[in-house]
């Protein structure tokens, strides 16, 4: 967890709650439909690559990003948003290969979480799970 002091930029709560309100029904339905069966896990290649770490499960990523935003009605801190950014950018490449037996549109949910985070000027970078970007040696 990052200390809150690292992120001093205030959140745009109006924009955050407006986006949540706009997509409320879609989020509610998809989050309620998740039975927590974890059958989506193996469909994520990052889950397979990272010794079956639950943090890479598609359902975990959705429930702990968009799900948390929905449950808390947007009342989250900068640190929590940055943790969510780790989940939806670093732990997901949005390849769209995740499979839900109940037909939940997981990539759309992750994409929505990314949209909300971008609106708060938070954006992810290269997925650390695939290795850090190679830094060129100075000549």
């Amino acid at each position, binding site marked *: 967890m990052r200390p809150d002091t690292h992120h001093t930029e205030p959140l745009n709560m109006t924009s955050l709650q407006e986006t949540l309100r706009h997509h409320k*029904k*879609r989020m509610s*339905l998809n989050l*309620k*439909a*998740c*039975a*927590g*069966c*974890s*059958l989506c*896990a*193996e469909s994520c290649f990052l889950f397979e690559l990272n010794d*079956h770490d*639950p*943090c890479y*499960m598609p*359902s*975990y990523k959705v*429930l702990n990003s968009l799900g948390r935003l929905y449950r808390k009605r947007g009342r989250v801190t900068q640190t929590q948003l940055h943790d969510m950014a780790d989940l939806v950018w670093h732990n997901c490449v949005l390849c769209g290969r995740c*499979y839900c*037996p*109940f*037909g*939940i*549109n997981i990539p*759309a949910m992750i994409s929505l979480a990314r949209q909300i985070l971008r609106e708060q000027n938070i954006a992810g970078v290269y997925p650390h799970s695939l290795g850090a970007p190679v830094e060129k040696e100075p000549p």
Partner: protein
Amino acid sequence: MYDQIVMAAYTFARGPMLWAAALILCVGVIYRIRELYCLTIRKEKQSLPATVSTTTPTQTPEERTLDRLARIQQSAFAVHPVMFFVSILFHACLFAAPLLALGHSLEVYRAWGITPPSLPEPLIDIMTATILVCGLFFLMRRLVLPRVQAISGIADYVLLGCVMAPFLTGFCAYHQWFDYTTVITLHLLAGNVLLIVLPFTKIGHMIFFFFVRLCISSEFGPARGSRDWKV
């Protein structure tokens, strides 16, 4: 005093609460289906042929067999065979046992004079026992497997309890364990609670599952589907 309370609860659960639960269930299911329709749109017609062959014409019969085997290997059946069979067994019994129980048929006959189909009591008893064993499997899975633990909350355990309670009490009532009137009252109350929470909680995947799998087009769907999610 205790007997009076139990009888009052029994009368309430068998009368007004049952009607209220049935009404809430019907309204809830209609509301959920309407919601699903509002969140999806009719799929645009494409100029592609109605059925697209998954195999190329150049594939030999052996290659086609390998293709099919690869598909099976990637399915939930091959990845989680135990979970796959337990799930199917659990859901099949969950649907059939309450609808085909002789006791329930007799209640319908007493109320409306019609006799719905029913299965022999020993068979329903086996089905109920199967549901209870499968429920225990799901509980253990949630408690033990790190991947399921990571996405489990109190609500998941409460809902599992809500689903299991009518079957556990029904099983006890059939075997005449404990005080019969108390157990059958608890059975009625638990059944009504399950009907009430069904459309509004995660158990609502009962409605969601069929709609999404059959109506919405998806790469892994069994049907082509005529609808698509709104963007």
